[in-house]
């Protein structure tokens, strides 16, 4: 059989010619994945010639893979031909097998593109998701309340070991970083305030300002933010990883309550340690302030602390410390709830850990704002 190339084949992938047995398409060379774009373009340009093909010849085909076979069958179909009705000649057995397999699976292969809704649809989805989150938190709070009530009834069921482990991780582990950060903030705050206050010659009043700021806002807030980033993220990652490896299900199956075993020890540990850390933060913040006051403003350590005793009401210190357990509860609930809502894949752990940190920071600052509104006075 002889074939003559026609202008209808702009590429060297095939040519179409009239032979003794009808119009014959002769496949040439390499029909593999990396040449697919060129073959696709060539077939697209010869669509009209393709429609008349009756015979397909594979004698000069060197290589064929499933992608090539799929593309060819697709173009034949687009040209209005049924690949099953054509005569396929001189194809080696393996190519015939492949073509048969590809043809049989062609019907099932359709390109599905994910649906993307309109803006209103998106808004609706976000809103609904927000409501679901809200409900999830309420349900989780309910479970925690139930576990707490259970603990009051049966104190022996409390997990002491886990509690002390968390106490150490959340409290002792955070001591150096909390002390260092608040010391530095004390230094910076006093330095900047001192520059202004010197202009008025009101050096001694630095004690009033720094004492109030550290005890009421800086120490509780900074400590809570540090612990939220440090322990909140850890809670979510720990519980989330346990969820992925089905440990949570195992706990439940063994007749234990995951809330009892995992959440209560963390919740109590963080609620106890955060006020203690805040106290440490108060001390180190004031030490930093006293250091700068001594160096920059010529206020001796003795003067600083005796003035502090006069002007800083104990009420303010207590108020600052009282905020800590509330921050702590919010951090523990958000972190543990996110840990439990991790789904069983790797990406989910990271996603929920991020969400924990963001929501912990937001809620700590919101709670702080609520405190400021509820207790606006400096002294009772």
């Amino acid at each position, binding site marked *: 059989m002889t074939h003559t190339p026609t202008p209808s084949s702009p590429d060297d992938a095939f040519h179409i010619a009239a032979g003794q047995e009808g119009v014959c398409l002769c496949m040439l060379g390499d029909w*593999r994945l990396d040449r697919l774009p060129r073959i696709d373009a060539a077939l697209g340009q010869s669509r009209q010639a393709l429609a008349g093909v009756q015979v397909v010849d594979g004698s000069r085909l060197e290589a064929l893979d499933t992608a090539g076979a799929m593309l060819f069958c697709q173009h034949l179909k687009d040209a209005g031909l049924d690949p099953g009705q054509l005569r396929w000649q001189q194809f080696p057995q393996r190519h015939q097998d492949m073509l048969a397999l590809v043809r049989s699976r062609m019907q099932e292969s359709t*390109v599905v593109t994910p649906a993307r809704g309109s803006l209103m649809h998106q808004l609706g989805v976000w809103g609904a998701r927000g409501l679901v989150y809200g409900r999830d938190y309420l349900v989780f709070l309910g479970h925690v309340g139930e576990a707490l009530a259970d603990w009051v009834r049966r104190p022996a069921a409390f997990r002491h070991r886990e509690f002390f482990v968390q106490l150490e991780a959340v409290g002792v582990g955070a001591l150096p970083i909390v002390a260092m950060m608040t010391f530095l903030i004390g230094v910076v705050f006093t330095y900047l305030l001192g520059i202004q206050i010197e202009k008025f010659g009101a050096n001694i009043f630095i004690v009033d300002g720094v004492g109030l700021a550290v005890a009421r806002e800086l120490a509780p807030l900074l400590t809570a933010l540090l612990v939220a980033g440090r322990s909140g993220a850890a809670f979510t990652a720990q519980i989330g990883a346990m969820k992925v490896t089905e440990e949570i299900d195992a706990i439940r199956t063994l007749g234990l309550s995951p809330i009892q075993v995992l959440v209560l020890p963390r919740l109590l540990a963080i609620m106890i340690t955060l006020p203690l850390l805040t106290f440490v933060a108060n001390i180190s913040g004031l030490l930093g302030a006293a250091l700068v006051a001594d160096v920059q403003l010529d206020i001796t350590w003795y003067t600083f602390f005796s003035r502090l005793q006069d002007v800083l009401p104990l009420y303010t210190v207590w108020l600052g410390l009282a905020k800590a357990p509330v921050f702590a509860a919010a951090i523990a609930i958000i972190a543990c709830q996110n840990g439990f809502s991790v789904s069983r894949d*790797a990406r989910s752990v990271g996603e929920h850990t991020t969400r924990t940190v963001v929501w912990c920071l937001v809620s700590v600052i919101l709670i702080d704002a609520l405190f400021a509104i509820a207790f606006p006075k400096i002294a009772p």
Partner: protein
Amino acid sequence: MTAPILEVENVVTELGGRRLHNGVGFTLQPGRITALIGGSGTGKTVLLRECIGLIRPAGGQIRLFGQDILSLGPRAMNRVRQRFGVLFQEGALFSSLNVADNVAVPLREHTPLSKALRDRVVAMKLALAGLPPEAATKMPSELSGGMKKRAALARALALEPELLFLDEPTSGLDPISAREFDTLLRTLCDSLGITVLMTTHDLDTLWGMVDRVIVLHAGQVIADGPVDEVARVDNDWIRTYFSAHAEGRGHGI
């Protein structure tokens, strides 16, 4: 005879101070399905991972498509990597991408296809692996074990590999899905001419679809050949292995 696809020679592996393989060797000819069997902890998966260049053996030689992969540079190794596909035990689908995008990853990295063409190739691969079109937009976490394996197979087949490595392809599947998966693999390998090396514990797979069995025991290959020959080999471990399963099988097939 055609050139061998994979040659493993005298491979020695030491893991954690323990000698896992003590001179393992075999050769794969094109177009056959070969299974590596052996007890748990005999290093089947480790050997498989050495063949695909994820672990470096302490000694010996591994040649893929005639190239010594232990002395290849990273770029040459990447070219070799495009010629084989791997199906990991748990599928190892990327959890942040949906099924279609998972299959599209190798195509996007290594081929010049346009998006439209790529989408069609992906749809084809999914159909070849026996997945319904709706599965394309699902996330891996929404798939059942069998569907995950199929999606992972579609990804392994994306670059039209000449050689497929399968790590326990039927583990975690129910017997019906497992047999379907076997049939699918057999069909694909026969019609696409792919060579397969798998590790398995599944005796039904061995009897049903495997051309050749290599038995690893105590760090060495103790038997190598068609299933019925290997099953007759006079060795304690092999006898126990085949009879333990046979008793559980009732009256055979």
